[in-house]
């Protein structure tokens, strides 16, 4: 075959080309696997395109036939309803577009809070389950098996109805150190920055940069000389110390807005609404059980020989865990951990069951109803969860590739 091809270009006899070779050289395109697969892919794509086109066209035609208005114009109209909790300025006069932002930020808030708490709790529980201490490991096992096997919605209801609803009324609030706990939420004094607080913020960022430089320098020094430097303690000292010193020097420029019982509720301070607390507890505790199992799997995946080798080198137990076991375990832990983060974010939409104003409750709930633009609103909501999930997994994939074993 190959000789045929190389010969086809020139005729060694110099005469006119004989018409016998070509049929073999140019197979029919359906006999060429490359072209054939290309053809099938094009066919598949166009069929898929047609399906989507028909669905969209069908929907639009039907909507028009039924006299249902479509489009995104509604986003600029005045919303006219209140929202219980907003991280940005929101009033009834804001637009429907703003309700989207408010809901989105509330969703991101609960997702971040949940991921933070679930990760810490999950790691502790995962390590605890492997502990040699019988009590600790059994307690962790019981926790995991209990919370993993109860539906999340029930857990949310438990925290909301059974725990937080039974708290006293605002007038009989429980008080600790200027904070109040009642069935309207947890009310804490709000910090108010006064003149000169900017210096403290500046100091904090300076300390961050400083500790990054220190860690670079110490790494270099260790590579060159083998001497170690207590980077962690030095950085901690910098990050806590510098802002603290500046804070004292500039005369403590931070006021507190103390909550006060006026009329029906507390005025001033920051109120953490019970819906947020219930959702946060339920999401963190539920997801932590799964993360704990992931962590346990990761640690068990590191062969015992590694620990023995570390012991043979004279490393302490803590150092073995920190420098040998955990870095290797992370390779196994990160991919399933990403799934748990994604689950938590998506599960946060159960907020609507207890009235926490997240994206689904505010935007795909009230806004959808008041405007009637179901398709647009649901499409936007789905796009948000898709984007959040893709961002999370992109970040986690980046982190995963960073901590992979570098093979030399």
């Amino acid at each position, binding site marked *: 075959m190959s000789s045929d091809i190389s010969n086809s270009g020139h005729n060694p006899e110099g005469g006119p080309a004989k018409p016998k070779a070509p049929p073999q050289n140019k197979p029919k395109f359906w006999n060429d696997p490359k072209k054939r697969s290309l053809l099938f892919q094009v066919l598949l794509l166009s069929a898929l395109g047609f399906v989507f086109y028909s*669905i969209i066209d*069908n929907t639009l035609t039907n909507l028009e*036939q039924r*006299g249902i208005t479509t489009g995104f114009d509604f986003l600029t109209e005045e919303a006219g*309803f209140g929202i219980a909790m907003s991280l940005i300025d929101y009033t009834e006069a804001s637009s429907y577009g703003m309700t989207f932002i408010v809901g989105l930020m509330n969703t991101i808030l609960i997702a971040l809070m949940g991921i933070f708490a679930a990760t810490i709790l999950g790691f502790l529980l995962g390590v605890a389950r492997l502990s040699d201490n019988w009590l600790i490991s059994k307690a962790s096992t019981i926790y995991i098996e209990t919370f993993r096997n109860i539906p999340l919605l029930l857990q949310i209801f438990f925290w909301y109805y059974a725990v937080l609803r039974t708290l006293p009324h605002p007038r009989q609030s429980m008080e600790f150190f200027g904070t109040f706990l009642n069935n309207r939420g947890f009310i804490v004094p709000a910090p108010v920055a006064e003149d000169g607080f900017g210096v403290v913020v500046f100091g904090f960022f300076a300390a961050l940069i400083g500790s990054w430089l220190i860690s670079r320098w110490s790494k270099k020094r260790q590579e060159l000389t083998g001497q170690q430097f207590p980077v962690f303690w030095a950085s901690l000292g910098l990050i806590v110390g510098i802002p603290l010193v500046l804070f004292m020097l500039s005369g403590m420029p931070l006021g507190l807005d103390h909550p006060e019982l006026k009329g029906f509720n507390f005025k001033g301070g920051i109120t953490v609404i019970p819906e947020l607390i219930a959702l946060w507890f339920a999401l963190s505790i539920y997801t932590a059980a799964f993360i704990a199992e992931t962590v346990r799997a990761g640690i068990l995946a590191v062969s015992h020989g590694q620990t023995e080798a570390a012991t043979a080198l004279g490393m302490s137990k803590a150092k073995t865990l920190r420098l040998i076991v955990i870095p290797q375990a992370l390779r196994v832990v990160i991919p399933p951990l990403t799934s748990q983060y994604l689950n938590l974010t998506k599960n946060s939409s159960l907020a609507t069951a207890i009235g926490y104003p997240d994206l689904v409750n505010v935007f795909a709930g009230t806004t959808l109803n008041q405007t009637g633009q179901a398709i647009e609103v649901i499409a936007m909501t789905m796009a948000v969860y898709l984007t959040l999930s893709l961002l999370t997994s992109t970040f986690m994939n980046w982190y995963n590739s960073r901590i992979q074993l570098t093979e030399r």
Partner: protein
Amino acid sequence: MKKTLISATALMAAMAGTAMAGTLENVQERGAIQCGVTSGVPGFSVPDDKGNWKGLDVDLCRAVAAAVFGDATKVKFIPLNAKERFTALVSGEIDVLSRVTTWTQTRDTQLGINFAGVNYYDGQGFLVKNELGLKSVKELDGATVCVQSGTTTELNMADYFRAQGISYTPVVFDTNDQAAQAFDSGRCDSFTTDLSQAAGLRTRMQDPSSVGALPEVISKEPLGPVVRQGDDTWFNIVKWSHNAMLNAEELGITSANVDKMKAESTNPNVKRLVGLDGPKGKGMDLPDDWAYQIVKQVGNYGEAYERNVGKGSPLGLERGLNALWNQGGLQYAPPMR
């Protein structure tokens, strides 16, 4: 791929299937009306201990069934929350939405639906605990208010408080039941909804006598049955089923005396209503005695009112705005001729 194609085709078929068909034919073929109701608002639509649906909104669907099939039991009730209701109607999941739904311009003109009348004139009010000693909604400054999401109630409250310069925190729940419970357990200082529903939900609270309504009624809430836009025959059937109940009350025809009236009455209005004379079921593709069946099996509007929300019920509401026009109310049906 095959699977994708099949499911996509199914999806398209499903979307095409619910297109503008004759609702009446569909209903007759199915042998039952699918009626969207609340998941439980006493007096309007609530299942009793045997699972039978009861209420003013329920009776309206039964009346339509009596008119179409001559059998008021041929109704399938589908409980919906406020958010689901219009989608369920427009997508063809239900034939009539009879679910304490307020008639507004946006809903009537932009959602592809039609309101077929008003079976209850309502207004929005506020429930509070008596122990607070409140006299007016204007004293609610700073209060937390429980409310159901996706309702006109939510907007009315925001409008009213804004106009009065009162600050408040809304806590929004999926169903009115949840909102009422939250108020009952102290999560909110007040609970706002249409007064008729408030009266019903109040009966379910731990101590109904400790809860009272503030005097202000802050909105107009004409509640009525809703049908899909674009099917005029079905629209007419629902509209006239309601009108027949009103006319029957006006003429003094009840479920108890309808047979006697049919046999004996010489009043031409009565004769037209029971189907002996006049337009009968023509133009709506209904049997001649459609209105007779409604009165016989469901009763007139007054009967339905009294047994569901009026004196004969735990709610004990006055007729008020819902009295007939000739008795000082707003209920006025066009004549049947």
